[in-house]
C-alpha cells in the first residue's frame, strides 16, 4: 500500500473518483474479454475444419504430383509449370471484430480452367492436369487458412492484452486505491479524535483559568471588605 498519499479530504475525494472509474473500466474490460473469447471460439471451430481440409488437400496434391512426375518425368512437370501465364493474386480487406482488425483475403486466378493454364492440351497428359488441379485446390484452402489463422493470432493477442489489463486493475490498481482510501479515512478519523481531545483540553484549561480568576477576584474582594469591618 502506498503511504505517500497526503491524508487530506481532497485526496480522499480524488481517490474515490478514481476507484469508481477503475471499477467501471474493469467491468467493461471484463465484458470485452468474454466477448472476445466467445468470438474466438467460433473462429477456432472454423480453423480446425480448415486445418483438416488443408492436410487432406496437401496429401492429395502430393500424391497427384508424385504420380505425374513418375509417369511423365520431372522435366514435363517443370515445363508445364514454367508455361503458366496466369498467376494467383490475393487482395486483403479488413473486418472489425470487437475492435480487432482481421483480414479478409480474396483471391483471383487461383482456380483455372484447362485452357487458361497456358501449357497446351496436346503436349501434356491428364496427370499433370490433375496435379495442377489438386494444387489449385490446395492453394484455395491455404488462402482460407491464412485468413482464419491471422484472425486467430490477432484475437489471441487482443485477448491476452485485455486479460492483462483486467488483472492489472483487479489485482494491482484497485487494491492499491482501496488501501489508500482506507489509510486516508483512518488518518482523518484520527485527526478528528485528536482535535476533539485538544478541544476538551483547551476547554478544561479555560475553565480552570476562569475558576482561578474567579477565586482570585473573590479573594481580592474579601481583602477589600475585611478592613471595612474593622
Amino acid at each position, binding site marked *: 500500500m502506498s503511504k505517500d498519499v497526503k491524508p487530506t479530504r481532497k485526496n480522499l475525494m480524488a481517490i474515490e473518483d478514481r476507484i469508481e472509474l477503475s471499477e467501471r473500466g474493469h467491468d467493461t474490460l471484463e465484458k470485452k474479454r468474454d466477448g472476445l*473469447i466467445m468470438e*474466438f*471460439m467460433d473462429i*477456432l471451430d472454423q480453423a*480446425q475444419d480448415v*486445418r*483438416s481440409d*488443408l*492436410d487432406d488437400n*496437401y496429401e492429395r*496434391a*502430393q500424391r497427384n*504430383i508424385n504420380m505425374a*512426375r513418375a509417369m511423365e518425368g520431372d522435366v514435363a*512437370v*517443370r515445363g*508445364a*509449370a*514454367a508455361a*503458366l501465364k*496466369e*498467376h*494467383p*493474386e*490475393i*487482395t*486483403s480487406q479488413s473486418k472489425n471484430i470487437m475492435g480487432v482488425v482481421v483480414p479478409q*483475403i480474396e483471391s*483471383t*486466378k*487461383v482456380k*483455372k480452367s484447362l485452357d487458361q*493454364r497456358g501449357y497446351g492440351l496436346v503436349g501434356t497428359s491428364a496427370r*499433370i492436369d490433375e*496435379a*495442377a488441379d*489438386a*494444387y*489449385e485446390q*490446395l*492453394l484455395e484452402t*491455404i*488462402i482460407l*487458412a*491464412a485468413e482464419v*489463422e*491471422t484472425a*486467430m*493470432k*490477432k484475437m*489471441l*493477442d487482443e*485477448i*491476452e492484452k485485455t*486479460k492483462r489489463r483486467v488483472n492489472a486493475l483487479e489485482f494491482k490498481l484497485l487494491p492499491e486505491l482501496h488501501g489508500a482510501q482506507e489509510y486516508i479515512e483512518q488518518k482523518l478519523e484520527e485527526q478528528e479524535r485528536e482535535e476533539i481531545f485538544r478541544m476538551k483540553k483547551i476547554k478544561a484549561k479555560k475553565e480552570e483559568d476562569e475558576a482561578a480568576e474567579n477565586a482570585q477576584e473573590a479573594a481580592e474582594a474579601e481583602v477589600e471588605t475585611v478592613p471595612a469591618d474593622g
Partner: protein
Amino acid sequence: MSQEIAVVGSPDFTAGFRLAGVRRFENVQDGERAERLDDAVTSVLDDAGVGIVVMHDEDIEYLSRTVRQRVETSVEPVVVTLGGGTGSGNLREQIKRAIGIDLMEE
C-alpha cells in the same frame, strides 16, 4: 493492393505450387537448410508484395530463433505451414497462454 503467394522449401515441395501458378518461390535444397533457409525466409517476409508464405512444417525446425519467432508471429505476410497436423505450431501454445486451457486437443 494485390499481393502474391510465396512458397519456401525444397524443390520437390515448391514444384507443385509452381504448377498452380505460384511465381514467387525460394528453393532450398534439403542439405542446405541450415545455411540458406533463414535468408530465404527473411527475404520473402520482407517482400511487401507477398501476402501469404507457404512452408513445410518440418522446415520450421531449421530456422534460427529470431527468424522462427518472426514466422510464428508474423501477420503480414502470414505464414501457413503444411503437413504438421491440426494441433501444430505456436498457435496452440498461444491459445494455452491466452485462454488458459488447451482448446486444440484432438
